[in-house]
């Protein structure tokens, strides 16, 4: 049985590992900064936050690497928590944040803003976020009947909307210039290279707020895992919880995608790993998934920017490359257990 002590111990351990990984990611790069130096600089920065970090080491650490690490962790957390939420909502362990089409809608809007950059002048992340929001409403409208949301129709609506948007994207691509096309591709595979600081603060707050709101439903999600009818008999206001989780998890996906493009597999793999390690109880699963998600994207981004340096790979390529085999392994393993 889950106890407070166990939750605290697991989360503390995960946070320590995450801190270690952050240190590693700060240290590794085109300029190698020894871990001792990293620790000293971080300590100095924490102790005297007002000192102007003008030294070269400080600039690399706090102006270049730190924002990027932060962005990677934020996006990883958002996608992983969204994935775990969708899995409970749709009662399907194979659901991921992109299944309901939010990222396709965001991608289409982002690409439109790239294509029409001269005339619209809407920043890509904002366009992506708005596109995501519109898709949330669209899929919800298509997927619900007389106010009731059914998992099956929701998935179907998501798939249809996503494939429609994808074909529109393909339709637009021939009209793009080489530079725009490169930007588009980068966007579609996901990357952390364009940190937009002004948005980051607000998106961070919105993301954290949404994660906390989802956590409020942890107990209800546990019961939803065994079935909607059963959950209703156990005191869950099923329609209300489904609606809330759908909106919150889709919003989380939209926020993540607006920052980094659509990064695959994180929202699928991370909840799976968390379930294997810590069980299905959402009161532990959700925070553990959040931290593991941050770890995974942090690691993937580290690989993406170092493996063939100075050229940078899109991080989505790394998560897919590593994610697919891991996923197949998990799937086969589950089958064997049946």
């Amino acid at each position, binding site marked *: 049985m889950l106890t407070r002590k166990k939750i605290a111990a697991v989360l503390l351990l995960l946070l320590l590992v995450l801190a270690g990984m952050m240190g590693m990611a700060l240290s590794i790069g085109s300029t190698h900064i020894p871990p001792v130096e990293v620790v000293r600089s971080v300590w100095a920065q924490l102790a005297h936050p007002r000192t102007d970090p003008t030294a070269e080491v400080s600039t690399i650490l706090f102006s270049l690497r730190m924002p990027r690490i932060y962005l990677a962790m934020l996006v990883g957390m958002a996608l992983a928590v969204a994935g775990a939420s969708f899995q409970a909502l749709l009662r*399907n362990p194979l659901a991921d944040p992109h299944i309901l089409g939010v990222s396709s809608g965001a991608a289409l809007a982002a690409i439109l803003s790239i294509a029409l950059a001269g005339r619209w002048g809407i920043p890509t992340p904002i366009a992506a976020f708005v596109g995501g929001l519109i898709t949330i409403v669209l899929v919800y409208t298509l997927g619900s009947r007389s106010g009731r949301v059914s998992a099956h129709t929701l998935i179907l609506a998501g798939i249809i909307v996503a494939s429609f948007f994808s074909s529109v994207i393909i339709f637009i691509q021939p009209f793009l210039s080489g530079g725009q096309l490169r930007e588009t591709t980068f966007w579609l595979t996901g990357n952390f290279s364009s940190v937009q600081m002004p948005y980051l603060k607000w998106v961070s707050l919105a993301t954290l707020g949404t994660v906390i709101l989802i956590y409020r439903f942890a107990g209800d999600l546990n019961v939803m895992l065994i079935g909607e009818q059963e959950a*209703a008999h156990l005191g869950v206001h099923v329609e209300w919880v489904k609606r809330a989780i759908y909106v919150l998890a889709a919003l989380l996906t939209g926020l993540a995608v607006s920052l980094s493009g659509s990064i695959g597999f994180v929202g699928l793999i991370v909840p799976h790993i968390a379930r294997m390690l810590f069980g299905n109880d959402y009161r532990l699963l959700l925070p553990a998934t959040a931290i593991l998600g941050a770890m995974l994207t942090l690691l993937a981004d580290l690989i993406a920017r170092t493996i063939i340096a100075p050229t940078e790979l899109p991080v989505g390529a790394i998560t897919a490359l590593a994610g697919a085999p891991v996923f197949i392994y998990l799937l086969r393993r589950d089958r064997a257990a049946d």
Partner: protein
Amino acid sequence: MTSLPSERVMDKRPPLAGASPLELHDVTVRLGKFQLQPVSFTANASEVMAIVGPNGSGKSTLLRVVSGTLKPASGWVRWNGVDIHGMGHRLRARQIAVVAQESALHFPMSVLEYCLLARHPFIDGIQLASREDLDIVRTALEMTEAAVFERRWMNELSGGERQRVILARALAQTPGLLLLDEPTLNLDVSFQMGLLELVERFAHEHRTTVLMVTHELNLAAEFADRVLLLSSGVPLAFGSTAEVMTEGRLREVFNSDLLVDQNPVSGAARVTLLRGKSSELKN
């Protein structure tokens, strides 16, 4: 089945007033083409009531109305004087437990984890199950003799084991009203007997009202104090098993040749099916 251990954790409900705790008044339902004609009855504490009738007679629909998940087109259902459909979800789940055909489980879950979900309506927000909740769940698992496999996974259980766990989950809700929708489906005869004996004993010892939908006429006759007979959405008869389950009536309702006599041991009505004019398949 074994005797009931540690009673004190299970029995926390206040003593009931004299009136019948469960009251249905002119409950009707309209679901597409199906219509349930006005049903009224009351059920007492410690009473086991069976709802019987052919397929499509509205038995399970009526049970859904009493469980609170389906709103009646007219009429009302009251539990201890309070309208069930006006209650909050959590409050309702603290008093009414349901054993129905369960959805398939897509997530691995241990028997204990599964049964701990029964305490959800008693646990606030993101709080964890307390020691007391665990005691209640363990007691319920012992009652249904499922405690020995509490660490096993739900999807590894046999049909009989699974049904015992599902019943344990319902009992762990410490319900005042227990609703059973074909609880003996897919169980072998000894399990059927054992399960209903347990339900009967639980009802008596915890002053729980039990409402059971079943196709097993003999089990209904054996365990129910009173029976409601439904046919095509019409409540045909309500009363003691001897009053309701008469040969002529059952022949007509089920459209088949059958004999009703007395079980030589228990004295309850006994239904024997005969070959010949059996069922609608031949018509």
